[in-house]
């Protein structure tokens, strides 16, 4: 900062005296009062009644529809205070002053009158002092009823925080390009301006020789001739981070998911994973896709996975069961209502295809299309989302290979499918061939399902998919 000031004073001589003046006299007082302002709840500012200004068209009354601030909030000039409505016109009232809101004169839906006080704002008394056009912008404390400020001289808008930052760094606001609303100067604009001045942010240059920075060298590359000799070292600036943690309540669907997942974790899960060679299925689907298209249906791999699962469940019905709360009884569900996890804006929802055991692959595809379009429109019904007995999650459409899926109560098993990758594998002749490989990760309730059952079910499911023709034998 020291080096800064010296450099500025040497290059911008005509301002020098003004700067010195400001810094010596009022600046300290200014910052001192600012500190007071921030730390104490009881302030010594002046309370100004901000009156509702003329709306136009001879309107005298409006209804207050929304407050953007509440008592105790601090506002900057031009911040929105409230929204009022009059006869089909919605008006945004903005603040003329910087300060703290001390009183709202109206409640929502009350009638407010033009020319009467709308809010009371406590203004920091020291603000009136700084009148430097170039460094600080100050609103004139007039009693005129204008809705927008007449800014004398240059039209540079900036909040007090930004003006302070500019002043601390000896920056002339009129030289900074504002990128905010109405060309307002934002903090980023000041920081960018600063960065350009100090050369702190440098793109990596491939041509530069690696010169170790001299420990006591000049830190600012003031003239071009210096560049060839020294590698500029960034001036250290305090990192300004004004982000804040944001806390939100968990509501609605999210809250329900918290309950469900907490219940799910009470189930002792065990996992079983495997790799499936889908080369033949990929070919088959390519052949069948146009045929399905002629019938108006988009055919993905899921209908095959779902039907194969149902065929497997016929042999291992315990995977399509439900355990009661006290773990006293197991109910073997007759219908195979296979759920398909869908990623929507809200999160994970699981509609299910009912009675897969009596559906053809085409019918399953058709039903999936219906559920998918309803899902993306946010119009799934309660019957679509309840009654599931077994779930498949195709997380592979997003990515991943192996996962650890969580069982959705009251079910006892779930399968997650990874993405299909082209990988080299050995065929029967010992040759390396291209294979379409997909990974599957099963989770099952270990209280009633043992590893062997899960493994056999998975092998059966795998064999149907690796050799789709074998499905024909068992299709009902």
């Amino acid at each position, binding site marked *: 900062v020291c080096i800064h000031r010296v450099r500025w004073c040497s290059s911008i001589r005509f301002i020098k005296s003004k700067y010195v003046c400001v810094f010596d006299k009022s600046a300290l007082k200014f910052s001192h009062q600012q500190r007071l302002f921030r730390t104490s709840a009881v302030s010594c500012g002046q309370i100004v009644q901000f009156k509702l200004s003329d*709306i*136009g*068209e001879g309107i005298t009354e409006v209804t207050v*529809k*929304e407050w953007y601030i509440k008592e105790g909030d601090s506002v900057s000039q*031009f911040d929105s205070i409230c*929204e009022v*409505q*009059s*006869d*089909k*016109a*919605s*008006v*945004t009232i*903005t603040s003329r002053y910087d300060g703290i809101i001390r009183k709202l004169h109206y409640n*929502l*839906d009350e009638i407010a009158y033009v020319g009467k006080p709308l809010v009371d704002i406590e203004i920091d008394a020291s603000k009136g002092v700084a009148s430097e056009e170039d460094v600080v912008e100050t609103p004139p404390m007039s009693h005129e009823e204008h*809705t*927008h400020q007449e800014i004398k001289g240059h039209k540079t808008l900036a909040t007090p925080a930004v003006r302070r930052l500019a002043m601390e760094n000896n920056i002339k606001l009129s030289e900074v390009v504002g990128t905010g*609303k*109405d*060309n307002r100067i934002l903090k980023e604009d000041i920081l960018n301006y600063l960065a350009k001045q100090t050369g702190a942010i440098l793109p990596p240059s491939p041509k530069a020789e690696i010169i170790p920075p001299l420990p006591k060298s000049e830190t600012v590359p003031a003239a071009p001739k210096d560049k060839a000799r020294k590698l500029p070292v960034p001036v250290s600036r305090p990192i300004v981070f004004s982000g804040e943690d944001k806390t939100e*309540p968990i*509501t*609605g*669907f999210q*809250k*329900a*998911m918290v*309950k*469900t997942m907490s*219940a799910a974790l009470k189930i002792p899960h065990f996992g079983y994973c495997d790799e499936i060679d889908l080369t033949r299925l990929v070919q088959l689907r390519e052949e069948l896709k146009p045929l399905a298209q002629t019938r108006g249906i988009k055919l993905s791999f899921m209908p095959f996975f779902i039907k194969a699962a149902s065929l497997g469940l016929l042999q291992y019905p315990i995977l399509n069961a*439900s355990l*009661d*709360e006290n773990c006293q009884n197991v*109910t073997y569900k007759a219908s195979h209502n296979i759920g398909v996890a869908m990623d929507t804006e*809200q999160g994970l*929802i699981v509609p299910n295809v009912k009675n897969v055991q009596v559906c053809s692959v085409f019918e399953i595809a058709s039903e999936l299309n219906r559920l998918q379009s309803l899902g993306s*429109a*946010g*119009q*799934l*019904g*309660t*019957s679509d*989302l*309840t009654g599931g007995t077994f779930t498949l999650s195709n997380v592979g459409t997003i990515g991943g290979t192996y996962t650890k899926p969580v069982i*959705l*109560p*009251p079910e006892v098993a779930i399968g997650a499918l990874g993405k299909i990758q082209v990988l080299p594998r050995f065929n029967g002749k010992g040759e390396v061939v291209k294979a379409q490989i997909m990974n599957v990760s099963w989770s099952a309730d270990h209280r009633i399902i043992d590893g062997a059952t899960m493994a056999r079910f998975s092998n059966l499911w795998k064999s149907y998919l690796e050799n789709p023709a074998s499905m024909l034998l068992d299709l009902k």
Partner: protein
Amino acid sequence: MVLQSSLKNCLQRSCILRMPKAGFRSTTSGGLIIQSISNDVYQNLAVEDWIHDHMNLENRQVLFLWRNCPAVVIGRHQNPWQECNLRLLRQKNIKLARRRSGGGTVYHDLGNINLTFFTTRKKYERMENLRLVVKALKALRPQLDVRVTDRYDILLDGQYKISGTAAKLGRTTAYHHCTLLCNADKFVLSSVLKSPYKGLKSNATPSVPASVKNLFEEDPSLTCEMLLDAIAEEYATQHQIDHRITLINPADETALPGINNKTKELQTWDWVYGKTPKFSVSTCFNMVYKDSVLDVKVDMDVKHGRIEVCNIDLPEQWLPPALCSELMKSLTGSKFCPNETTTLVTTLLRVCPQDDELHSKWNLLCENMIMLM
């Protein structure tokens, strides 16, 4: 950010009035006429926001012409549940938008044209704009009986509303926009603007229903294009500017920096539904369950589109009390939205006792609750 320095790309069109412009620099100061090439209600509303926020209208006024695919547009402080049939909108895939100006609810489709008059705050004058429109219509078809009312409507034959007005005033700029019915689908209009929701109590701005008529019905030779041209021409004459309409693309981020964010914001649930002023729902319905009819009474307070308070009165022991209170507790804080409620209640069912009878009762009750939204 002044529009003249950033607008670059415009499309070619083969109409006498509409010409491609490489920027606004060559336009005579005093006025500008622009037309949107998009029929997306959110994109077009975003253009209004953009001009309002970024354009310097000191010596230049702007007329913006636009049309939308079927959509219902509610005023800034209105309650969509009170104003339209949300179920029907969802079924027919008609969009719902909340504009930033005040006023009532309107139905837009391609048979309706929208006109927005941008001026500085000081030069805001709605009557003048509407008189301009009437003048243009009369110039086009002198026999048309159209006039402006003191409620800022335009009436045809003294009784049918063909135009509604709304306005937005900011710190330095203001805009007044209005609709004009040329050939809109009146059947859809009347069915979507009828709310089926009962028991709503709120301080939201209510719409004033009116009989409407299309100009096309009065004179079948009229088209939207003709109306747009006539109004543009009258505007150009009154402001002494070129009779040229510049086409703009509301998706062009280079020409309108920041426009895509504005478009996105207008589509968020928090804006469309969340900005509804606080309201309460107090209603009752009958449910038929296995030969018996049950009366259910529901009371809810909704703030920012979310259920603040929820009370459901059921016949004793029809549902286990613990379950009923679980439902009420879960709905509290949740969005007053059928989709959110559906996913919420079906997910909750997973951790309820697995009893078919219980499940069917729960589903029946929840489906009725969802119908209220």
